[in-house]
């Protein structure tokens, strides 16, 4: 599904076993030992951030946490917005969601954080194709080519800092 949606690397919750290549696993905390798979430590609340281990903070309401972010969050942290909640919003709220993306992207650029737009999918059918991501980015005045380039570089830097067993 990822291939036909033109997505090269998919981030999913670690199911307890390694499924296949082209997955990066989302964990709640850093594993105690070296792993044989790439992972990212994802945090849902700004209060729970551990600056040494957290890779991604999920942003639900950017306006509410904007002031806190600068104080509490280290540079290069990924700030992630998901598409899934916006599916259930009405027109005005979706409009605000688009504006949140635009503001968060600007904030990330100014303060050296990594902006991440993800589907938040719980099933294959909830995935968002690469081309649809690009359309959402364009509507928010974000150049898709810049977004993908920055994200690839950020992800590669994360891979380099991980130690894989049997890699």
């Amino acid at each position, binding site marked *: 599904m990822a291939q036909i949606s033109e997505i090269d690397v998919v981030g999913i919750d670690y199911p307890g076993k390694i499924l296949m290549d082209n997955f990066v696993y989302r964990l709640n905390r850093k594993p105690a030992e070296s792993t044989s798979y790439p992972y990212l430590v994802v945090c849902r609340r700004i209060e729970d951030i551990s600056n040494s281990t957290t890779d991604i903070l999920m942003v639900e309401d950017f306006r509410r946490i904007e002031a806190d972010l600068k104080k509490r969050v280290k540079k290069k942290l990924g700030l992630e917005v998901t598409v899934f909640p916006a599916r259930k919003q009405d*027109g005005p709220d979706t409009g605000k969601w688009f504006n949140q993306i635009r503001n968060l992207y600007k904030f990330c650029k100014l303060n050296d954080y990594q902006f991440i737009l993800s589907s938040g999918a719980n099933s294959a059918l*909830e995935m968002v194709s690469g*081309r649809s991501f690009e359309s959402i980015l364009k509507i928010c005045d974000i150049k898709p080519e810049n977004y993908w380039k920055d994200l690839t570089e950020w992800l590669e830097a994360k891979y380099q800092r991980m130690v894989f067993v049997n890699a």
Partner: protein
Amino acid sequence: MLKRRSKRRYLAILYGVGLQHSSRGELSILHSITKRNSELFGHITTELSSVRLIRSQQENMIIISCWLKYIDNILSTIALIDPPLVTIVISGTLKSLRKHLQTISHNTYL
């Protein structure tokens, strides 16, 4: 003055197994796309997009077309719709879209 013909794009869209594969089901999906597009981008833009339904032979899939100028609106509408839909192929002609679909195994996406 150059006379340029406006271009259309054809999109193959996957929908959930819960939704019925019938002409009525396909029309209701088209209606949900145009309704959501109107909510997000307005009625005028939706009309100008000229979204049309084209029958698909494959189960759980519809093909629609729209003007190229409005493709970003339609794609983001599809990404922001509930129940979820996934755009799997976009093409400039119906023939190449169907050719592309034949190369994808049905099991790949269901």
